[in-house]
Structures are given as C-alpha cells and as structure tokens.
C-alpha cells in the first residue's frame, strides 16, 4: 500500500537532492547524474547531521561534518566501512517520485 | 472616424507621451485626453484655467472647437498642451 508521492521531477532536478518528510520519516531523495533516483535516510548514522548538506559525486554521498562517505546504491559505508544507510524503495511514475517508508528504520552508530 | 496617435508634450511634465485621439475630437477633447496622462500624475492642475492645444513651436493655439481632422494632425504629430 505504502508508496507515497513525494515530489515531481520538476521539483527535484537531475543532480539535486532534497530532504523530505515522508509519513514522519526524514528521507533524502537523490536524483543523481544520469537520472537515477534513490531514497535514503536523511540523517547521517554517525551524528545528527542532515545529509542534504553534504555533497554527492556519482553515487558517493559525503556528509559535510566528518566526511563519512556512503554508496547510495547499496547503502554501504565506504569510509568508514561497517556503517549503513537505510534505503527506502523509490520509483518514478509519470514524472513523480514515490517512496515507501513502511517498516524501514534509519541506522545509527554509537560512535 | 479614425484614431490618430499623437506625440503629446504637456506643459510642465518631463516626458513626451503617446496619446491616441479620434479624428472628430475637438481640441478640448484632445487636451482632456492628454491631461489624463499628465495632470494629477506629475503635473498639478490649475483650476479655473483652460488647456489649449498648439503644434510644437506653434505661435497660437487651435480653436477649442476645431477638430483633429480640421487641424490636419498627421499620425504622431507633436503637439503641446498648455494652460492659457
């Protein structure tokens, strides 16, 4: 049931990412170079830093605060390894981005 | 009856303006049409005084009753509208 419309491709252009509240979940929607769309947890698992303030190069997302890096495809930490980003199912229908947040919780480290 | 656009220079205003009039307008009507775009906008009215119309540099005004057609105004003729 749970795919919800978050925004349109007019709102979020290729090369942009934006933080959205989707049914109470803070979700970072990424519309990456080449046109792929991903939805990941909005807050860095390291500390309480919004990832939207970081930078995206290719599929590598870097948090602005301590430069933790993640592969947004798999949600795996690149540096450091061993940490994870929650990935929400996302799809594009008729130029709109839909995300399903049901049953997915963000990861946090205690580091 | 045709519309004749005029180039109007209104006394004490700072700019020439485009004012369309009809060929059967009297000079009083021309003055009124011109005044609409200057008086109370950038020029203070002078109650009790009459507005007259003349060609730019014309020595004397046209009769108040004569029409645009009678005055022979060409399209974009430059006229001055001023207090008598």
């Amino acid at each position, binding site marked *: 049931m749970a795919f919800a419309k978050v925004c349109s*491709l*007019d709102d979020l*252009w*290729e*090369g*942009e990412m934006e933080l959205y509240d989707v049914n109470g979940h803070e979700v970072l929607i990424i519309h990456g170079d080449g046109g792929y769309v991903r939805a990941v947890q909005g807050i860095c698992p390291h500390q309480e830093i919004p990832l939207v303030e970081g930078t995206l190069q290719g599929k590598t997302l870097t948090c602005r605060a301590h430069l933790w890096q993640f592969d947004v495809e798999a949600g795996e930490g690149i540096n450091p390894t061993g940490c994870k980003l929650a990935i929400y199912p996302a799809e594009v229908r008729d130029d709109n981005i839909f995300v399903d947040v049901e049953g997915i919780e963000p990861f946090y480290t205690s580091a | 009856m045709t519309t004749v656009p005029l180039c109007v220079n209104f006394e004490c205003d700072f700019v020439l303006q485009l004012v369309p009039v009809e060929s059967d307008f009297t000079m009083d009507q021309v003055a009124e049409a011109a005044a609409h775009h200057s008086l109370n906008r950038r020029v203070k009215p002078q109650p009790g005084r009459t507005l007259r119309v003349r060609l730019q540099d014309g020595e004397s005004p046209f009769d108040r009753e004569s029409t645009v057609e009678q005055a022979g105004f060409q399209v974009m003729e430059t006229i001055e509208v001023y207090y008598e």
Partner: protein
Amino acid sequence: MSETAQKLKPLKTWSHLSKNRRRPSEYEIVSVGLHFSTNDPDCAWEQDAGTFMNQWYRKYREGSPVNHKDWDAFRDPDELVYRTYNIIQDGQENYVDGLIKEFDDLEHDQGLQTEWVDALSKLYTPSRYILHGLQMASVYLCKMAPASTITNCATFQAADSLRWLSHMAYRTKQLSLVWPNYGFVDNEKHIWENAPHWQGFRELLEKSLIAYDWCETFVAINLVLKPAFDEACLRQLGHAARRFDDSFLGFLTDAQAVDSQRSRRWTSSLVQFLQQNEANQDVLDGWVEKWVPLGDQAIDMFCAALPDSPSAADDAKRDCWSFRAGLGLSA
C-alpha cells in the same frame, strides 16, 4: 486560488535552462545562449536590416546551407570556460617555459647541424604566417558561429594560435642570435611568399580566410587546414627534427599537440552535432570534397621539402584522412 496557481515557481537556474530539469554545470550557466544576434534571422543587430553588417550575417550565418533546430544545444566536450582555460594554459606555459630554459642551459641551438638549421629557416619559422592566419580564421568563426558554445571553442582555438605564434617568434629570435646568417627574423616573409613548399599552405590559408560562410570556414579550417598543418608542419617536421637530434622542436610540437587534440575533440563534437540533421551530411561532404584537394596539395608540397622524410606526405595525408573518415566524412 487561481492567483496562487498562476504564480510562477521560483527558478533554480536561468529560465532558458530550466526546461532541462537538470542542475546546470558552471559551464552551462556561463556558456549557453549568449548570442542575442541570432534571435531575429533577418536582422542580427539592432539597426536598419539593410546595413552591410546585417546583410553579412544574413548571408553567411543565417544563409548557411547547414541547419540545426537548436544550435544552442551544442556543448564543448571539454566544457572549457574562460576561468579554466587560463588555469590550464598557464600550466602549459609553465611547462614550455621549463623546456625553453632547459634547452637554453644545454646550449641546444649551438649544437644543431647546419643542414638542419637551414631546414628550420625554411620549414619551421616561416609558419608564423599560418599560425597567425589560423588565429584570424578562428576569430572569424568565433564572430559568426550561430551558438555561443561554438563561439567559445573557436575563441580558445584562436588564443591557442596566438600562443604558438608567440612561441614561434621567440624561437625565431633565439635561432637568429645563434645562427645570424640563415635569414631568421628577416627572411620568413620572403620564403612564405615565394618558396614552392609553402605555396600549397598559402593557397589553402588565403582561400580559407575568405570562405565566409561560417560553417564552410569551420570545415576548411578545422577539418582540412589545421589537421594538414598539424600532421605536416608539426608531426612530420617533429619526426625529422628528432632524426637531426633537434629534440627541442619535437618537445615543442608535442606540447602544441595538446592544444590540437582539444581542437579535434570539439571539432568532432560539432561534426556529430551537425550530422543530427541528415541534410547537413551532403553539405559537409561537399565542402570536404572541395577543400581536401587543397589540403593534400599543401601537404605534398610541404613534405617534399622535408629532409630525409620520404614517407612524410603519405603519412600526413593518411592521418588527416583517418581523422575525417572517423567522423563519417567522405575523405
């Protein structure tokens, strides 16, 4: 609330780029759609449509037989902007400064063989006229191109030509100081205007300079003259230089080739861009067929004068041919 509904959304970039729905790069922000003279095909510049300049643009830009539905869609594959051009070329100039200093310390010019010094005076230093001619032709292309993204490529190409003209002037002076009796500095114009081996290039250059259709200039210069010059006067001359132990010239031509490679990249992109409209293919082929014989003749005449280089002309022509053939052009 119809009023709110009609209210325009805030922009993320220039309105003309917004339709792409893609975050624009610095290159796009500052390079795309800068010519406003293309807006009215009958009157490029805001004056009487019949002025000489307006007629010129109508004839040589709007009247060109090549067409494209959106000239502003062209992109430089290197995405060069003014800022990055200077950074790159300042670095390249540092490298050439280093070469000059290194070979100067080695007293390189003093050790040249006299036969080769003579060759340099006839085959190398007179090419300042071509380098300057390329500069002139490139600025013309820049002035007339139908999109600012094409103009900018031509601008940097013109600047590159001035760069090499400057190096040539420097080398000419250096050689004249070490070898005062070979006519360096004073004799190049005479050689350029009279020596048989330059007449092919001279004919090609002069005719290219008056090929005033913007795209014909592009074909004549970027697909024929520049490749012919690069292959004959840089690469083959560079090979000959190494055979005469003049490694300095070889290093210099290698450095120049970096600029030429960049020119070929955007040249290729522009040809492919033109080919998006099938009708342009015949026009391009027609121009290539018109100009290539002049290019081949220039190579033949020049390479015949290269010492100890029997295969130079064929090698140079083959390399030019394969560059154009790789772009699907008929020669």
